[in-house]
């Protein structure tokens, strides 16, 4: 049950996180600002930075968590097989 819940929760949360980080322009279209950052209008440069480094960081996190969930699913499979073997004995 645990690995399954984690898999579903991870997929939903990561999908939402990716969509937000890749669509910062949508947020600025709702909350406009004239702030300046690094010499650019914030509403211009932040979506670009998030669309590169933000997404890059999320892929690292998603890759690590995805690999760990795979291992947990595999561990639950092994437990299941072991319990079957015990029952057969």
């Amino acid at each position: 049950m645990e690995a399954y819940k984690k898999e579903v929760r991870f997929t939903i949360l990561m999908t939402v996180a990716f969509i937000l980080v890749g669509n910062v322009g949508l947020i600025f279209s709702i909350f406009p600002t004239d702030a300046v950052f690094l010499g650019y209008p914030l509403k211009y440069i932040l979506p670009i930075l998030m669309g590169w480094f933000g997404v890059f960081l999320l892929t690292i996190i998603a890759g690590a968590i995805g690999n760990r969930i795979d291992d947990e699913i595999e561990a639950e499979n092994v437990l299941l097989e072991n319990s079957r073997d015990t029952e057969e004995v």
Partner: protein
Amino acid sequence: MENQNWQLENPWMGLGVILATFLLFYIVGFVSNRKSTSARELYVGGSNTGSFVNGLAMSATYMSLATFLGITALILRLQVPFIMLWISLILAIPLITIIYGTSLRRMGAFSPTHFIRDRYGKTASIIAALFMILVSIMYALGQMIGIAVTFETLLGIPYLTGLIVGGLIIVGYITVGGMAGATNNAAIQMVIIALMFIVPLGAIMKAVGGTGWYFPPLLYADMVPAMLESLPTFFDYQFSPKWYFSIIPSLTIGALGLPHLAMRVYTASNLKSARAAMVWFAFILGLVFSATYAMGFVGVYATATQGLVISPEDADKLTIILNLVYNPDWVTALVIAGAISAGVSTLSGNLLAIGALLSQDIVATLKPNISQRLNLRLGFVAIFLGGVVSILLAIQPPAFLVVSILWAFGLAGVTNAPLIIVGVWWKEANKFGAIAASVLGGILYIVVSPFVFPSIVLTGHAVTDGMGLSGAMLAVPVSFILLIVVSFITNRMPSLASKLTKQSDIELIERIHGWKDIKAYRYNSKLGAGITVVLSAVIAVWALMPWGM
């Protein structure tokens, strides 16, 4: 500067660079490919590609000629809103990988329609495959227009001659190549694309007075004050939040349905490698995408402050024109080689997808006993014919080459993505829901696009309707609703029970998520399905309300 015919002064130099580039592709293809002996090897190259090479190849497949030519043209026209739109496209491979790519990789599928066939049956998969062929052709069309424009500028020949000569050379190359050679070549092409775009951009920035020329993707803030003085509206968002929201259903979900992108996930040697490739993809694509925004910025800057005149019909040539004006001819020749590399890598992805769709997903589904050899030959014929059709369509091109590509994203988002996403995550999804979603959603999307019935559109803003932003905002949620509601109802009709394959569907879903047993509670949430229907309904109604454009 006056409006003029933009072309290389010395076409022989350009031809030499292009010949050398193709020679490199052929050698890499020959060394890495040997010969494709089976259909699987032709399409996914034996599924043994390393993560860095695969990440480069994913980026090259995705980074089409649009990167070199199309994006900068639309930045010239739409300015910042188009940059905001393009940023979201980087989400494609990461979302494919986490939402369904690893599941389909675990299943051993070598195309999304392969999954649809196993999940929903033959009829649904053939319908999805037909739509995917249309998606791939529209995508390839954008590349063909770019190739024609490139050859036109290179040789000073008419657009039509450029289209036929350039198109046939590239289609011939891809037909002979296959995916194994294509993966290694795509990786090399990515390096060429990045270098041939970013280094000349640095030189252009230096020529127009920018001090950050040593890292062009992010260091052009010193040009912002002059830009604001000449063109105070450049950074304006122009459109309402609704326009920015429509990017999510049309492009973010659309990218999840693109067959040639998903196929790149299946070329990975294992799941960990596929996830590592996604990280490389994000880094490389972010770098080159940021450089394209800088190129677009410099293009607008040059027209606003330097007196550069670019006629509307030359908009797609902006990148090449900037190089012709500010860089020596030999640099422009290298840029053209980079543009052609971008076209070749994406076209090979598109055409190989068409080959896989026709030979594997349609013919092999209808005639399962067909011989391996005949099937492989059919694949080659389909690849070639797909190329020829896209050449013929490009004879009368739309105003911007990116428009047809982005419209294809929306069609993929309507007809393919819901079937895969819901199919992987919800056991109740069945073939009746899938067929209803794909057919009705697809028809709705085509009807409200300006290409078939120009008077039936949602916004009246030509580029927004043409790119499929408005159409997808209506049709994608409708497709999700149809898939879930029709499946839910038909699963409860006893008269249809014999036509459904509930048990094998359940087993397939458990298996592709990595489970060796079956549990009723997994991937069976009515609450999740209900929330999806309600959210989709709200978005569809919002799409029908006035856009105020």
